[in-house]
């Protein structure tokens, strides 16, 4: 085989792989759409349930609440088995004792079934999308992070991956499903319509293993920050709801139906905090990796390029959020607003800076 023929063959397989990738991405979208409807069904069936634990916890007469901590000492049943003493957990000063909601299905059996179907469909869509991303990577013979189309498809894959991992770890996060399915569809829709770029290799400035490190961690951070932001947003809604109930107000039926089924505001807040705090060091690392790459590509590790500047702004905003949580008078809602602003900065850094601001990072291939 001549060299020329070999190249041609390689090109042909690449195009073939790129087509496979596109088909997979479209299929994933179709399955996500089904998952989306299944989640909707879960919420709809769940609305039949009339649980109102939050209301009960916040409006019950004081005497009813004054239950003693139930300290249980178990006997070692037979004589050989030594059971461990039971640990009693209590909430502390300043916090409400509100139980977590039952989840989107609201305890409804049919709702729960649809919820399970939705999760299964999400797993399927995730696998198909992952295949699409991998096929894309194979077709361009590099990591699939060279332009915004590729960022978007990788981004939603990672976000769904984070969600499924949390589920697999037994965390109470199924309530995220509908929000996630919706945004993943938006993200992919944007990717295939506005951002689509034919598969291609990179310009020399992007040939660096720091690209793989920097961009992959940036995508992971974005996906995790996104999950944190959803938690924060829902915390704000649930917190208002609890406040209203606690002060004797009557929230609307829709709000009641939806918010009753979500975890308690304290749980949502903590979920958001953990997610954001866990990923903050990784975001710090991402910026540093970017600086190392910039040092070798452009001759300075920090030059206030718009992308760099907005990464910095995002970083400072999240640091502000972490700080706020240990600053008197800034906990709770105020800290949550900062977290949302911080995520807004991240979003602007991705869409805003790539599309509207020109800088050295303007090879995003829109």
């Amino acid at each position, binding site marked *: 085989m001549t060299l020329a023929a070999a190249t041609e063959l390689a*090109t042909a397989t690449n195009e073939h792989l790129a087509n496979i990738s596109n088909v997979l991405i479209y299929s994933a979208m179709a399955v996500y759409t089904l998952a989306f409807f299944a989640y909707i069904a879960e919420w709809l069936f769940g609305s039949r349930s009339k649980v109102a634990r939050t209301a009960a916890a916040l409006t019950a007469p004081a005497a009813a*609440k*004054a239950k*003693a901590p*139930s*300290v*249980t*000492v*178990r*006997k*070692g049943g037979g004589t050989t088995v*030594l059971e461990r*003493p039971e*640990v*009693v*957990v*209590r*909430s*502390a*000063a*300043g*916090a409400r*004792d509100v*139980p977590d909601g039952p989840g989107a299905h609201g305890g409804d059996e049919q709702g729960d079934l649809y919820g399970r179907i939705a999760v299964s469909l999400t797993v399927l869509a995730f696998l198909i999308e992952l295949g699409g991303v991998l096929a894309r990577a194979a077709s361009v013979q590099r990591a699939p992070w060279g332009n915004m189309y590729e960022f978007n498809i990788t981004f939603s894959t990672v976000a769904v991956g984070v969600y499924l991992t949390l589920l697999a770890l037994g965390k*109470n996060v199924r309530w995220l499903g509908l929000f996630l399915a919706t945004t993943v569809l938006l993200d992919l829709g944007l990717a295939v319509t506005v951002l689509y770029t*034919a598969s*291609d*290799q990179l310009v*020399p*400035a992007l*040939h*660096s293993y720091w690209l793989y490190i920097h961009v992959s961690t940036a995508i992971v951070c974005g996906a995790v920050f996104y999950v944190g932001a959803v938690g924060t947003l829902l915390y704000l809604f649930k917190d208002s709801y609890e406040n209203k109930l606690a002060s004797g107000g009557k929230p609307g039926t829709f709000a009641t139906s939806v918010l009753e089924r979500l*975890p*308690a505001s*304290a*749980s949502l807040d*903590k979920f958001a*905090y953990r997610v954001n*705090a866990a990923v*903050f*060091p990784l975001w*710090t690392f991402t910026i*540093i990796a970017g600086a*190392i*790459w910039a040092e*070798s*590509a452009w*001759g*300075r*590790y920090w030059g206030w390029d718009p992308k760099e500047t907005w990464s*910095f*702004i995002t970083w*400072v905003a999240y640091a*502000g959020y972490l*700080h706020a949580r*240990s*600053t*008197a008078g*800034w906990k709770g809602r105020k800290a949550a607003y900062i977290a949302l602003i911080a995520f807004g900065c991240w979003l602007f850094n991705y869409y805003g800076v790539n599309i509207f601001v020109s*800088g050295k990072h303007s090879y995003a291939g829109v």
Partner: protein
Amino acid sequence: MSETTANDKAATAGDTDTTADDKATTGGDRATTVGDRAATAGDEAATAGAADIAGGEQDLGAAGSQLSTAPRETAVPGSFGGTRAPGVTGRLAWLGREVFGWCRWFWRQLTSMRIALLLLFLLSLGAVPGSLIPQTGTDAMKVQEFQRTHPTLGQVYDKLGLFHVYSSVWFSAIYILLFVSLIGCIVPRTWQFAGQLRGRPPAAPRRLTRLPAYTTWRTAADPEQVRQAALGILRQRRFRAHVAGDAVAAEKGYLREAGNLVFHLALIVLLVAFAWGQLYKTEGDKLVVEGDGFSNTLLQYDDFKSGSLFDDDHLVPFSFNLKKFTATYERTGPNKGTPRTFRADLTYSVGADGKEKRTAVEVNEPLKIGDARVYLVSHGYAPTVTVRDGKGRVVYHQAVPMLPIDSNETSQGAIKVLDGYTNPQGEQEQLGFAAFFVPTFAGAGKGTMFSQFPALDRPVLALTGYHGDLGVDAGVPQNVYQLDTRKLKQFKDAKGSIVKARLRPGETMKLPNGAGSITFDKEIKEWAGFQIVQQPGTGWALTGAVVAILGLAGSLFIQRRRVWVRAVPGPDGVTVVEMAGLGRSESARLPAELGDLAALVHERAPTTTADHDPDADHDPDADPAQEPDAATSVPAEGAEKK
């Protein structure tokens, strides 16, 4: 999920209340809160009694204290001077106290968490305009353009320093304040933490039931035996533990605080390294044609910038020669013409007479010599031309760098023959040629002088010539790629039309009236643009950054927690074991860990079943003698909205 909730609420409880007395740390605040709660409980159960309420003040006081070194906001502005003694000395003393008090108050404000938060917020807000408004540091041309199109706005921006945000007075003020605040916060916290490390975990609070994780059981083992067993188990689990009174006090996770301090200290290192680098930084450009060289002295640069503390002899001595430049491009597909590789093969030597070494510089792989880095930043073509006078004498023979004006390397340049040329009339004259170069010509008759591909597939050089005075000697800086035609006359042929030609390599354009000729030689060189940057402190910045991440991971992933194990004989003589845990970070692991520890202790001091009221198994609170604290039927604390 409610398990974890409870624990973490407790964790944050420490810092909610800031009304505590001066001496108290966050734990003191907690004492107040818990005291209030004890009072509430007391109302409901008379048995608690007044003594218990008073005791509540100390319930968690020392035990909950110092789980964090976060600064407290205790200083209240007001009269610091106190009463003024009569006479001048009294007045002066009062003034001194007043001034000192205010200074201390301002300092405390500056180093408080609230101000740190505000400064962080201002820092991120302040960084925004620099990303939206053109900056002189990155693109001076754009700034000029902006000032031309928006004259008034441009002036306002200029006054506000918005064209150089990151070196403006106000931006500097924000980060310097933050820096001062950071130092003012970190130093006392470090001392405080060192003190905590030398001390021992605080003794158990009176009422362990109030802690976020709690467990109890009755055992036949003797209290001392239980304490010793617990001490051993806790130490084995790497807790710092000791027996204090009737209980074992243990603590673990100091690394969290250490990590947090290290993180903030590393930020200081990073900031200093960055500032240092900016002050001593130099940055210059040099265009080198294949075969030519560069040595690192100020005079050799085409263009040079330096930080405000830079001094000439800071330049690292080295020199290099560009042997060959290689570029390859995508040949097919939708991205035809996109560069694939750029490589400059160099020989270089360090110092005045160092040994010559070979190396290659690529886009992401600079040449590093000491603090200096040589980056490959641009490239282009340098066609070789030979100019002859009317007698056929060579007056100019050189590779002339051309400036690319599009991605296919359509290039523009000027050939300037400064001296040595004599016109047919025997006068000294200067020659100038405006040149267009395309590496891949579209073909004759295509009517375009734009290149079709960036590689040298079908090079063409288009020329038109001038003679007269190039204006180079006038002392005005000149653009090497353009001709100043004010004192030049264009060569015209006998019919009066302009003399111009599109030459292929090897071809010659004759100048009219025996004025000579210009030849586009077969040899076409390439040139490479290098940026030579010298920035000290980069290693420190990197070290600071890496340490910051490690510290951050320690601070966010490790949780600091305390465990107490109390063993006392109950009224009926049977030993009551109580274990409780307190943590300050928002982690779900504390109850689980307490459970594990309790299981281990329980193994050594198992639950006794001897003459024990079976009912108590399920509700020990029913038996006040057995668990005195719980007898007060303390409400679940979160129940009341605070």
